[in-house]
């Protein structure tokens, strides 16, 4: 049973480690809305002011991962899997730091099983 709300693929973790070497500590915030929404945005720590009521979903390679508190309501039963694409698949139009290195992080999802979700609810409360 893997109850982590956000996990990372091996390929994406390699890119995160590479970015950390150049940019220092990073922070992730799950985006929503139009165009490149539903993707995780990655910034140098301190460059993006994480809204104080955002919910921390977990950590990727020691970087905190947040989501908007209202958006979280619809992600409660999902595990986010952060993966990465090369730029030939598409350029992101965001300001996320990996974009300039020719990559784009994406969020895939797995819906928790009923059993897992019951366990998670216990730890949420």
């Amino acid at each position, binding site marked *: 049973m893997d109850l982590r709300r956000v996990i990372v693929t091996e390929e994406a973790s390699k890119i995160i480690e590479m970015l950390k070497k150049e940019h220092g500590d990073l922070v992730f915030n799950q985006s929503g809305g*139009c165009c490149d*929404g539903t993707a995780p945005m990655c910034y140098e720590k301190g460059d*993006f002011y994480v809204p104080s009521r955002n919910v921390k979903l977990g950590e990727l390679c020691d970087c905190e991962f947040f989501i908007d508190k*209202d958006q979280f309501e619809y992600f409660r039963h999902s595990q986010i899997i952060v993966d990465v694409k090369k*730029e030939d698949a598409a350029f992101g*139009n*965001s300001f996320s730091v990996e974009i*300039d290195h020719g990559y784009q992080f994406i969020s*895939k999802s797995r819906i928790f099983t009923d059993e897992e979700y019951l366990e998670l609810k216990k730890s949420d409360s």
Partner: protein
Amino acid sequence: MAYTKPKFKEQYENFIGGEWIPPASAEYFDNISPVDGEVLTRIPRSNEADVDAAVAAGVLAFESFKNTSIVERSTLLNKIADAIEANLEQLAIAETLDNGKAIRETLAADVPLVVDHFRYFASVIRAETGTVADLDGDTVSQEVYEPLGVVAQIIPWNFPLLMAAWKIAPAIAAGNCVVLKPASATPMAILIMMEEIQAVLPKGVINIINGAGGKIGKHLATHPDIKKVGFTGETTTGQLIMQYATENIIPSTLELGGKSPNIFMESIMDKDDEFFDKAIEGLVLFAFNSGEVCTCPSRALIQESIYEPFMARVLERVKAISQENPLDPATKMGAQASKNQKEKILEYIKIGKEEGAECLIGGAEYKNETFPNGNYIQPTIFKGHNKMRIFQEEIFGPVLAVTTFKDEAEALEIANDTIYGLGSGVWSRDAHQLHNFSRKIQAGRVWVNCYHLYPSHASFGGYKKSGIGRETHMMMLNSYRHTKNILTSYNKNALGFF
């Protein structure tokens, strides 16, 4: 007969100060067509030096452009409109190949709306005046308008030409100069448009820089010579733009998407007439622009008493959506704008199935035999409930989430149960219901017995997390200018304080 794919230039440059300037990095990237997966052209990969050059060109141009008369600016906007109209077909083909949308949409909607947008702002600035008030017998207050300066505009990839027009037209109508960054996936048609209008355009009034968001986006948004930022895109970048705007204390306007409810009351089926036919089309408009529209009517709420017969008729209409070749005017739905976007949509289709939604039609990619390397998805309808992620998140593809309601109260509760508030639609034969219900929806645009109309003369923008500010309509001018108050006393006597 399908249009043939023209040969485009092998490489484009940035458009700065009226000249085509190679990027400081001397680097380019391939611009890939989502129609067939082939490279269309190469686009500059800009860096901070290019941003600085573009802003400097804007600052220089503003010195004279701010003093142009309203007549001169109106004439300029009309000349831009004429040049675009004269090349309508060429631009429509370029837009279809760059973005993937069907040619019948670019010919009939995108490019004509671009032309109209410039003409609309050419007209309204001629008719508009400031205000004067006699505050008392010898004190006169004048409200006059002045442009902000150089403004930054960062636009999305779903309507590249139209979003450029929505941002550029009011900005230059108000007397500003522009630095525009097209979305890196869809810059080509905008660059072709600049070639068409460059002869009528004063140098430096519109500057275009290309490349991915990252560093140049930040450098542009925080540049001390930028006096306003307009952005269309996703929510986190919207928040970041607002944060950057605090650095120089400048305004920003944001358009960040939606999850628009399209609500069908039972009276639509009182007759099987032309209005009912219109309502069926109104629902199927979720597939317009391959679903890549901020206001996509991506949630259909149908009164339960008519659900079965209405949906039967809807599914017939969805089955008739032809896809194959976006350059064929008979094709009803084109490609998704990128491979990544296609994969994101397929991911949501998977989530919908895992969440237990019932797939009524579609639910997979479209195997395109003509263009096996293009990005195609079948129009898809899921039935489920409003707490599911496919009902709450913007998929930005031809994926509709349908649910039913018992009465008006339930319809309203579902309609407003979303973090967004951009578009919405209400369909009914009951005039009282139409009015009362429309007023209760929390969204910047309510289409009543219609959907997906975008006249220049009607305001557009969001409530809630769909953003801040309005686009289109002459009220837009005020978000691109200062109001100066000139308060004049005609009284020769001192106040008497000192």
